[in-house]
């Protein structure tokens, strides 16, 4: 846990350390004074549904961020995730749940009056309440022989913190595409009564830390 926090802090410091350099560069060019509200972008996750083709998990998500002075982009995101995996030993894991994320992205660099093209880093908190099933669990190595059972009604709640770094670029008109790299670690978890959850919606496999890349299609609201 401590090493995870260290890595997240180290990443945050790196981002912070580089940001002033970019800001200093801007000052020389008489940085324009942007108004507070610079627009809202709505993003639809395009990588999560595609994962159904090659992964044990898939889902759907929608996010929104509001651009404040081209300096801060508070974001919210919600989604669902479905997980269905059968292990080599015949154990089947299924999980379904919603997740919610909130955080802020900071532009490292941008292009365009309303930061249509943007390179950003951010910090987010995510949470998920979900249910899951474990069928065909086998315990081996006991003196009294192997045994099998199922755990069918498990409920859990987890919260995590994530550091994002990504890019969003204007494709045509109000449409943009973007991807971001996410590095995250569990902050707190209430496990099921009989198990650690194998998968957490919005977070991924229950390992600390976890990492992933997601892609979004964005639409800029016309106001």
């Amino acid at each position, binding site marked *: 846990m401590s090493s995870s926090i260290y*890595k997240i802090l*180290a*990443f945050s410091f*790196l*981002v912070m350390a*580089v940001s002033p*350099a*970019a800001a200093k*560069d*801007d000052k020389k060019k008489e940085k324009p004074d942007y108004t507070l509200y610079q627009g809202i972008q709505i993003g639809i996750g*395009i990588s999560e549904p595609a994962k159904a083709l090659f992964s044990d998990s898939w889902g759907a998500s929608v996010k929104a961020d509001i651009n404040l002075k081209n300096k801060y982009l508070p974001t919210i995101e919600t989604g669902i995730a479905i997980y269905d995996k059968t*292990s080599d*030993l015949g154990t089947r894991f299924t999980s379904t749940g919603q997740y919610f994320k909130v955080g802020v992205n900071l532009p*490292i*660099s*941008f*292009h365009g009056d309303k930061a249509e*093209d943007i*390179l950003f*880093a951010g910090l987010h908190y995510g949470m998920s309440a979900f249910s899951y099933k*474990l069928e065909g*669990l*086998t*315990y*081996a*190595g*006991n*003196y*009294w*022989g192997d*045994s099998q*059972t199922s*755990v069918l009604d498990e409920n859990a709640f987890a919260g995590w913190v994530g550091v994002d*770094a990504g*890019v969003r*670029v*204007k*494709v045509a008109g109000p449409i943009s*595409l*973007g*991807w971001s*790299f996410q*590095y995250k670690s569990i902050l707190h978890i209430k496990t099921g009564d*009989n*198990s*650690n959850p*194998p998968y957490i919606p919005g977070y991924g*496999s*229950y*390992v600390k*830390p*976890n*990492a992933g890349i997601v*892609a979004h299609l964005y639409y800029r609201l016309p106001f």
Partner: protein
Amino acid sequence: MPVTLLNETIISLRKMYKRSGCFLSLALLLLASILASCNNSGCYDKMDVKVKCSFYSLDSAYAVTIDSVSVWGVGSDSLVYKNKNLSEISLDLDPNSSETRYVFQVIGSGGYKFMDTITFKHVNKPWYQSAECGCMVFNTLDTCLTTGSIFQSATILEKEITNTEIETEHVILNI
């Protein structure tokens, strides 16, 4: 769509490179180190779940070591301990039953065999740890009985039997 995204990303990054080249270099370095640290394969958790019993004098004043001990489960041919000198034993409880019985045999001087049967009554609880480690069964001890041939009494000190390492023992067997 992925090709468009890639092309637009490259074009945009070129535009922004002067101000962000340093960040990109650091980010790539960091990305490499993070991915390298994400290798979590293998099970590093303790998966043994056994009831630990220690031998004490009848008044529990001092620990006792017993010579020539053999232990096996009732109904099983397989020995857990064979002719050992022991001051404690660690035993699996049956995950498919609420009662587990072990035969405890001591060979005394002259080859005479003393036998006791230790009975554990318990509640089982399956626990899935992780994909790497699999699952195990935790137990809650309800009762521990002996037949009195070797052990005069049994005292449960810790009811919960899990994979957590404990300082003391779960059960004291008084001789």
